[in-house]
């Protein structure tokens, strides 16, 4: 097959099979993928670490494991160490006898096998499983301008927007193949032109908008386009830990409710700070978000519980995984709200999820013991993977994650509503 892309001598040699047939196919995959988007060259990956979306040994993904095996057998391993999305299982998370059987012996029966494959391919360390690999505690934090081959929509949008790294919304497998061959095609969000904004989003709310709701609204409106958001700096102040946590949740919602890979927040995110409105295309469209628009979005979410008035059986917080300051602030909020209600422990089984490294740091603080006393369970599980089966689908689960709402039957509530439900009970 002939390609339009200009490859250098080394890339050409790989494509012709100098490093074996399997490596040639990896290069062919990356070249064909890039050519669909007009890429005219392949550029080296410059980040220290990679991040993969596929972390779960789901029996149904057998073809993926077969493909991984082909790579391993041919010695086509990742040139970078990598982190991966969260594991699907944790004994600490409440589950029924039947769920345990289904999870361990049917759905995720390939977990051990797949983790072994990941270790052979280049997993950073045995607990390198989180969707928030960019947290300081985890250490996979790329620098501005670095070229990545990441996947995981929430991590890609964070790396591009908040860190100023350069990464396309790569799919699983493509993420790994880029790191195996060492190059990614140069197009889209890797280019200056691809990082310009197609939309100006004006925030005109009367209070700080709920991160997950605002992200959902913008994602549904702009889909895969790049939004330039004005008026949010008024609520965020500076890019401190609270703002980073806000943008983590906001970005995950834009990426899952739409397909956003990069956003700019005026006065906050690095490229918006350095380039300002020069980032906005001349023909950019305008989307105004006010209180009424957020209410319209919220009211439009379908509730697919069989009994819409069912009492919630489980609450998940942390999709994407919670930050350290989020765990701390939620500990304080839960304690205060329980005190007001005269309750000692949460009234709905509740799980907070975070990266293993973040949980280790949290456990060094006195907040960990305080949170435990409220009855809340902490885990490094992926809530999405827990929910992906008919047994969990039939459970009334609540969350303030718009990503979890999008992919599962979990019902979305705002943070304040979740707090009220888990500490005081009753529907809001």
């Amino acid at each position, binding site marked *: 097959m002939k390609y339009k892309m200009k490859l250098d001598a080394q890339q050409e040699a790989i494509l012709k099979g100098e490093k074996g047939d399997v490596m040639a196919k990896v290069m062919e995959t990356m070249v064909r993928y890039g050519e669909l988007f007009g890429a005219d060259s392949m550029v080296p990956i410059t980040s220290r670490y990679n991040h993969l979306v596929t972390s779960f040994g789901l029996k149904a993904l057998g073809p993926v494991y077969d493909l991984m095996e082909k790579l391993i057998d041919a010695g086509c391993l990742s040139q970078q160490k990598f982190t991966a999305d969260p594991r699907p299982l944790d004994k600490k998370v409440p589950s029924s006898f039947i769920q345990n059987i289904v999870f361990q012996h049917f759905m995720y029966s390939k977990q051990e096998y797949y983790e072994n494959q990941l270790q052979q391919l280049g997993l950073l360390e045995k607990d390198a499983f989180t969707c928030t690999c960019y947290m300081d505690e985890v250490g996979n934090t790329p620098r501005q301008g670095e070229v990545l081959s990441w996947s995981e929509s929430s991590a890609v949008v964070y790396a591009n927007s908040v860190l100023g790294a350069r990464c396309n919304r790569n799919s699983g497998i493509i993420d790994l193949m880029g790191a195996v061959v060492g190059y990614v095609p140069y197009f889209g969000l890797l280019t200056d032109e691809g990082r310009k904004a197609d939309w100006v989003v004006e925030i005109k709310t009367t209070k700080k908008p709920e991160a997950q709701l605002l992200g959902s609204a913008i994602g549904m409106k702009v889909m895969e386009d790049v939004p330039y958001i004005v008026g949010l700096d008024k609520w965020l102040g500076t890019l401190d830990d609270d703002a980073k946590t806000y943008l983590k949740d906001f970005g995950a919602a834009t990426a899952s409710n739409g397909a956003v890979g990069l956003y700019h927040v005026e006065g906050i995110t690095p490229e918006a700070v350095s380039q300002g409105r020069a980032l906005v295309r001349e023909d950019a469209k305008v989307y105004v978000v006010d209180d009424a628009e957020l209410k319209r979005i919220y009211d439009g979410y379908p509730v697919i519980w069989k009994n819409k008035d069912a009492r919630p059986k489980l609450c998940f917080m942390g999709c994407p995984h919670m930050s350290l300051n989020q765990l701390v602030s939620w500990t304080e909020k839960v304690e205060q709200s329980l005190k007001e209600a005269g309750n000692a422990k949460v009234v709905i089984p509740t799980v907070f999820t975070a990266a293993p490294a973040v949980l280790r740091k949290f456990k060094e603080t006195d907040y960990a013991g305080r949170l435990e006393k409220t009855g809340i369970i902490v885990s490094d599980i992926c809530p999405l993977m827990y929910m992906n089966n008919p047994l969990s689908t039939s459970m009334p689960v609540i969350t303030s994650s718009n990503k979890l709402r999008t*992919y599962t039957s979990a019902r979305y509530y705002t943070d304040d509503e979740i707090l009220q439900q888990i500490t005081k009970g009753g529907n809001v």
Partner: protein
Amino acid sequence: MKSFQGRVVTPGEITAQALVSHGGLNTLASFQKALQFGDKKATCGDQNNADLYGKQMAGKALCLPRTIGSTTGGLVLYCACSMKRQPACMLFSEPIDSLAAAGAVLADVWLEDVSMPVIDSLGEEFLDYVKDEMTIVIKENGMVEISD
């Protein structure tokens, strides 16, 4: 009969009945149950897609603007192809997105006996015109013919 010219992403000729999604196809949400629980019809499980929810996707000419959502999208499509639960073809009104492109290319490069022709850039009028169950014929050159 009406014809639309698109760009060939992965080649092939096929005739199939249309299944139309006017919004973006969330690949993970749409296919996950089918792949996990042996649903050979690949019934769409995406509660947010009113056009497709509960409908069979396998063997249909899936007409859509783009795919959206999780970056597992490409490998989910690859698995659907490998397990023979893929649409007969995928016809995009817009230029293909990176996740669907990954799935299409991975299937074409790495699977020997599987075909899922993909055509993109068919235009807004294509998606306005095509309706569920219309008969679709696609040609090697990216021509899509639609008849009632």
